[in-house]
């Protein structure tokens, strides 16, 4: 028994190291200054442990230990603005996705109607289309509609990826809820009432998971943001960070930025994660 216990501990330790290693490698980089990060061979533990890059990316100068000043990043304006925009876009996309997807997944999973399979295949097709191939058609349409470089434009584009994907995942979940529609009908509830006041509370885990997934998709959307809003006042954090890749390569500030992008989704996931434990896609005994 102790042998199995220790095996479990070792496996768990490997899993934790595996999950955290790439993130820790960036934590380490974000604490280094510019001189140390370019040293070869690279250090495992940073020697000059400083927070300069975190201050710099938000537009503040930082005084290093030796008296020299690490000056604010030129990207700071874009990053602060990107952070605000990203929060707005992600929250709005999450709310709209839930309002659209929950009834849709419910309808697909619990009711029978004509063209159901055709429409379901439409959803699957929308999941399968790669964003690179829809970029040009959407861009052309956006130029005509004047939506390039605007937040509503980006929100609409994000919805085109979240809605089909989340619907696809929730259909299996709704199938597993107890069949209470007949009972509700006997008790005289209308369909809308059944959905809003009986099914929705039962399905709160599914709704929570839909929220996590939609938030993460919108928060991390890169391809469309790069083409549609990069460099405009409507830039989002991912697009703003891409500035570090090209004209202003600064690995420690880049690392600090990436670490900041992890925090909001991690918080969302932390508060909603217990719902993930209740997502049964298929009931084995049915």
């Amino acid at each position, binding site marked *: 028994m102790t042998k199995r216990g220790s095996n479990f501990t070792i496996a768990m330790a490997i899993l934790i190291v595996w999950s955290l290693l790439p993130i820790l*490698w960036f934590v380490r980089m974000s604490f280094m200054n510019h001189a140390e990060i370019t040293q070869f061979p*690279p250090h*495992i533990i940073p020697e000059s442990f400083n927070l300069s890059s975190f201050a710099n990316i938000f537009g503040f100068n930082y005084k290093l230990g030796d008296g020299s000043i690490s000056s604010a990043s030129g990207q700071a304006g874009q990053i602060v603005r990107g952070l605000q925009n990203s929060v707005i876009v992600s929250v709005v996309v999450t709310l709209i996705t839930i309002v659209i997807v929950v009834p849709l997944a419910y309808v697909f999973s619990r009711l029978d109607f004509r063209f159901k399979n055709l429409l379901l295949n439409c959803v699957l097709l929308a999941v399968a289309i790669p964003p690179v*191939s829809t970029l*040009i*058609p959407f861009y052309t349409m956006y130029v005509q509609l004047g939506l390039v470089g605007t937040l509503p434009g980006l929100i609409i584009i994000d919805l085109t990826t979240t809605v089909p994907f989340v619907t696809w995942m929730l259909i299996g979940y709704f199938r597993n809820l107890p069949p209470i529609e007949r009972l509700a009908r006997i008790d005289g509830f209308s369909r809308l009432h059944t959905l809003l006041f009986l099914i929705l509370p039962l399905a709160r885990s599914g709704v929570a998971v839909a929220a996590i997934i939609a938030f993460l998709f919108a928060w991390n959307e*890169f391809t469309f943001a790069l083409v549609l809003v990069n460099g405009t006042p409507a830039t989002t954090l991912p697009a703003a960070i891409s500035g570090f890749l090209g004209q202003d390569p600064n690995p420690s500030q880049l690392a600090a930025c990436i670490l900041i992008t*992890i925090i909001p989704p991690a918080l969302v996931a932390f508060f909603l994660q217990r719902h993930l434990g209740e997502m049964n896609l298929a009931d*084995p005994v049915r």
Partner: protein
Amino acid sequence: MATMTDKKSLGRSRLKRRELTDGQFALMIGLPVILLLVVIVAYPLVYSGWMAFHRIMFFGGYRTKFVGFKNFQTVLTDPEFWWCTWVTVRFTLESVILTMLLGLAIGLLLNRPSRFGGLWRTLVFLPWCVSLYGAGLMFAYLARGQTGLPTAVLAHLGMKQVPDFMTTRSIIEVLAIGSSWTMAPLVGFFVLANLKTIPRRLYDLAAIDQLTPLETFWNVTLPPLRFTLFVFTSIATVLSMKLFDFIFVLSDGGPGDASSTLTYQLYKVSFKNLNLGYGAAMSFFLLFLIIGSTMGLYLVWGRREKQI
């Protein structure tokens, strides 16, 4: 005539609280979404279809010319296209297999009761919170000889080698490991949810029957997981095949064209070379590949599991 009576009964239903039929209710809920889906699915497809049958020229004034199936022919006779297809297939296979194995391992490990279970769950879930471009950057820095962990460890031990994994031979493996690092936690959590529904007494019965741990896993644990595993194999396949930003950031299709998957090639053809007709034709082949492989998965595996 039929629609009129439908409308009448709809109007009256509010007063008399009569039930809507399934179809009417579905229409009421779904109509706005169906319109949205038409835009999402049909518009880009029709537009790409139009582009695929035209030659679009920018230099010397924008003009288009109808060329029939020529773009499709060019794609099929282009050795570059077949190379990219092979890269895509190889990457997808590696990434999906790794993701599913890791996801299964995560689910099984987290299912064991342990102290600080909530903390472990949060830590294991973290990779999924990292964006794909963030993960791409992380793995680029980890794998590159100049900045990577292996070099740092070897230097720490006093060795001078510079192991570089961003090479033609191993770049696809780096990509597959990275993408499975981000996707596996999601699979793991859904597996975990399913594991929790397995009644305890089945394990007691298995112990009475003196099954080995492997037999217990095969006969008790695995059967209820199979449907979830199928669903996520499909999802992982689709996500791997349409993965772009991760590859764009990590390797930029290189070194050379060693990691140019079809999505990357599509980006290169359409946005760098501005060869829009050719790119559109290629995007249809990519779409066929994605749909074809999920259909194949369904026919070979999914059909035997319980239907959604």
